[in-house]
């Protein structure tokens, strides 16, 4: 019951003008993914496609995004795999250009044991700043809590960092964007370091609706 009451309270304290600024975003991305595990020998690169559905209601923003990429191992004898990553995020603007962000994500791997499947929760900061009426730059940083790995283990340090920029029409109907998202998991399994690292670069277009 408390979360519901808290949510209603947050909606109520949001200013009416911002509440009226509702917007839906739909995006299509091309992605380039670099995935590493344990050592540089287990690095894989690949390309894929992604998508985004976003909703902004006043001070709140909700976002569902995902990508699928087919990765090849750098090693000639390595096996490739495919990644399907889905993420859900919600943010609340606490000050001009600063929002608190929470979310969850899941990474599926095909074939199943080619690398670690991961489940995460994130808590972080999203900062977005308009460079002009047509361009925006943003950065984000989050701590990934309670990371779950298909192979077991825990991550003492699990962080996510990102940088992006977009240029579009003044009314926000169409914009092109470029973004990178970096994740690092200092995973340990039975006191053995088995780190994971991933970098996702997105380029794409987004369409806004009111």
């Amino acid at each position, binding site marked *: 019951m408390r979360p519901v009451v808290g949510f209603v309270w947050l909606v109520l304290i949001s200013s009416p003008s911002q509440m009226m600024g509702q917007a839906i975003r739909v995006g299509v991305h091309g992605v380039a993914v670099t995935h590493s595990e344990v050592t*540089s020998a287990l690095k894989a690169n690949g390309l894929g496609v992604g998508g985004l559905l976003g909703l902004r209601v006043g001070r709140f923003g909700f976002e569902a995004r995902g990508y699928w990429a087919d990765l090849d191992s750098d090693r000639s004898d390595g096996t490739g795999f495919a990644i399907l990553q889905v993420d859900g995020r919600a943010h609340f603007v606490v000050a001009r250009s600063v929002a608190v962000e929470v979310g969850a994500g899941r990474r599926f791997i095909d074939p199943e044991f080619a690398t670690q499947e991961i489940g995460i929760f994130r808590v972080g900061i999203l900062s977005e*700043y308009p460079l002009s009426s047509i*361009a925006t*730059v943003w950065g984000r940083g989050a701590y990934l809590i309670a990371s779950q790995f298909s192979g077991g283990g825990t991550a003492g340090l699990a962080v996510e960092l990102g*940088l*992006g920029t977009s240029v579009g029409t003044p009314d926000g109907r169409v914009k092109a964007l470029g973004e990178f998202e970096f994740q690092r998991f200092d995973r340990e399994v039975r006191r053995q370091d088995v780190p994971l690292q991933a970098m996702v*670069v997105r380029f794409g277009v987004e369409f806004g609706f009111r």
Partner: protein
Amino acid sequence: MTRRHGVFLLTALFLAPAPIAAQQHPAVVRAKAAYDALDFSRAITAARNALQQERLNAADQILAYEVLAYSYGVLDSARQAVDAFKELIFLDPDREPDVERVSPRITSLYASALGQVLVVRRLVVDSASFVAGEGSVPIHFELSRAGRAVTRVVGQGVELVVDSLLASGSTTARWDGLLPTGSPVPPGEYQVIATANEGRNEFSATTRLRVTHSAVDTMPHLTSLPGYTVLPEMETPPRDWRPLGIAVLYAGLSSAATLALEDTDLGGGVRPAILGVGVGSLLTGFVMSLKKPDPRPNQGNILYNQLLREQIAQRNAQIAVENDQRRRQVTLAILPISAN
């Protein structure tokens, strides 16, 4: 020449008779002819006969009394002259001897007669136009001596007492053109009656006026206040490097943090991504710095305009209320009607 004849001749020379207008009735014409011929005795006889034996209209009566009064005056018969002037004054209070053409003695006799009677003279109504209930029209008249003056307006089935006061000499009554109910009088012709009372003596003078109705002008609504202009709410700031600075800040912090957290043991692949997106961000900031800045809202001007619009709205609300009242009002135009 006897002394009496000398006085008569002197009087006749100095007190030249005033010219008297031609009239229709033969008896009055005869009296006037005798007067013009300086045969004042015959003029007196003819005038008296005309007044006693003939049926004269008002104008002829006035002329006959005038011949009589002037002739008595010339012949030094002061009492008879004053009596004749009194009758003349009652018949036409506004008719006076022309001081340019008659002797001071006759003027003096006229003034003496005027002081002995109570009449209303020189009744005049000014032209006026005013909103009913917010103005009045002056009614001027003179009382020949002290008495109570009652001014009434009669017409269109209405009889109104405008004023009642003790007065002497010139006085003015003011009529507001309203009925006792407060409504404006109906349009049409009215008679103004000024009555002077003193004991049993009573004398009235009348004149006429016309009242017309028209709508009261309304005021136009305001779109601006004099001396105050609406200021531009959007202003284009001067071009600056702020977008590039912001881009450098974001790209620098994100890239530096990412590079710091990169586990180099896991191989490359991170730096090209940072470089690509970072350079893209910087380039975007650089282009946005070169681009003409977008107009920004000027909060001071917005507040000023808001206050200005509130003032205009308040004034227009007052104008609307005032116009609403004006639409229910009537402008009275009052014009005296000439006796001719």
